[in-house]
């Protein structure tokens, strides 16, 4: 299969998988309704869906627009069914890409990203399932007060570790977005930690604009 036909094939199977995935998700509450014989409170449900969707409809679209270039074709469909994009799938793909030394947009990277999201997904569902099987055994350990800070700050640990290679490799590219995000955090801390999805988009735009200016002015050495 050449790259174009592989890409078209992944779009085809990806769409089928996405349609199946959305159906599986939607059938869960329907099954609970049918089996229990108790329907939802329609008023509360519609208000909740509308008020949540005001926030999550645009952010869902922005996520596809922002993250699909990192994921490629197959992994985008898989990741948008299995979730945990920002806190797991995207960093996981970027780490695999670093280690396998592939460039975004290449056929090799498409393979690496798909494998990365697939095995990350399998790891997560296995851990959830095993955790539930042995819940009584591991619950005291995970809920121990001494362990709470570890999992409270797992995302900071993740992006700190991941940041090292990117910051080291692109020292000129990082100055503007870092200064921008630190200043924004100092001026409007609540906005930053409450709206991280929006802050990511803003910081990414600042970073791209700064990179473009530096690139056009030839301040960045050609890679």
């Amino acid at each position: 299969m050449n790259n174009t036909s592989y890409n078209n094939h992944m779009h085809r199977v990806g769409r089928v998988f996405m349609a199946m995935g959305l159906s599986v998700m939607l059938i869960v509450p329907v099954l609970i309704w049918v089996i229990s014989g108790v329907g939802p409170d329609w008023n509360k449900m519609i208000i909740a869906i509308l008020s949540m969707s005001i926030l999550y409809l645009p952010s869902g679209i922005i996520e596809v627009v922002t993250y699909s270039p990192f994921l490629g074709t197959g992994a985008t469909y898989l990741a948008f069914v299995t979730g945990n994009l920002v806190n797991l799938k995207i960093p996981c793909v970027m780490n695999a890409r670093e280690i396998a030394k592939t460039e975004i947009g290449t056929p090799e990277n498409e393979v690496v990203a798909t494998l990365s999201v697939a095995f990350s997904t399998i790891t997560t569902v296995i851990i959830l399932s095993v955790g539930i099987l042995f819940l009584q055994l591991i619950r005291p350990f995970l809920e121990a007060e001494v362990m709470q800070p570890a999992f409270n700050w797992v995302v900071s640990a993740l992006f700190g570790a991941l940041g090292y290679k990117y910051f080291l490799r692109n020292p000129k590219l990082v100055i503007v977005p870092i200064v921008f995000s630190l200043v924004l955090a100092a001026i409007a801390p609540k906005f930053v930690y409450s709206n991280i999805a929006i802050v990511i988009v803003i910081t990414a735009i600042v970073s791209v604009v700064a990179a473009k200016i530096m690139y056009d002015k030839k301040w960045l050495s050609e890679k």
Partner: protein
Amino acid sequence: MFLQTTDINLIKNAWWMYLIGAAVTIFIIGGALFFAFTALRQAKKIGMRREQIRQSVISSISFSILPSIGIFIGVITMAGLLGIPLPWIRLSVIGALHYELMAVSVASGGITAATLTTQHFVTIAFAMTISIIWGGVFALFFFKKYQTKVLSKATSGEKGGFGKLLFDAVFIGMISAYLGDAFAKIFRYDVRVVEDGAYLLDDFGDYVVVDSRTFVPIIVFLSSMLAMFVFDLIIKKWHQKWLENFQLALSMIFGMTVAVLLGIGGIF
């Protein structure tokens, strides 16, 4: 109706709820394996090295373990109110703990495990599911068009060499945002109180929050970064290439251990 009971305490942890959870899990694993095999077939066709494939798989598994344990803690957090199976299902598909907790509060504000009814439970399940599907719906109908009409143009043609920098710049923006997130918590950090697996609301329907400003996340961020530097030295100076696949996971463990040690020292 198939049940003799509408008692929520019997429904939320019922065997058939676990069965639904198992079915969803099998669907997800089946889908992931299908995509993996398709990618592996393509890897052979384009002549990729076995080492590249092996590294991608091992690094992705080792990387995913710790965040997945974090996701499992989310299941435990919600279990008090919703039982085990529904949070298990919800966190196996698109969603996240903060989103699910928000859905609980919006769909049935003010309820507790003692006042939860089956109707609340069904309402919450519908609200959680429908409100988060928009990214998937957009991908289903528009991703191919977006990729062919917008992305391919943005990364090719006259922009040439900038295409490579573009994605690095976006990702650096993302990492910088999380650095800002950790930094912001030094100045202010209102944490919503979770009780019985849902956000606690006051008499006016507002979230109850506590001020928890902290230095810990920025210290964790920098500690993980430092650990990566040390592992990099070990890999390069002592030629321990195998360590590359575990470097990130081990650096995260180091950062998380620092957080635990700070906690033991009374710094949260």
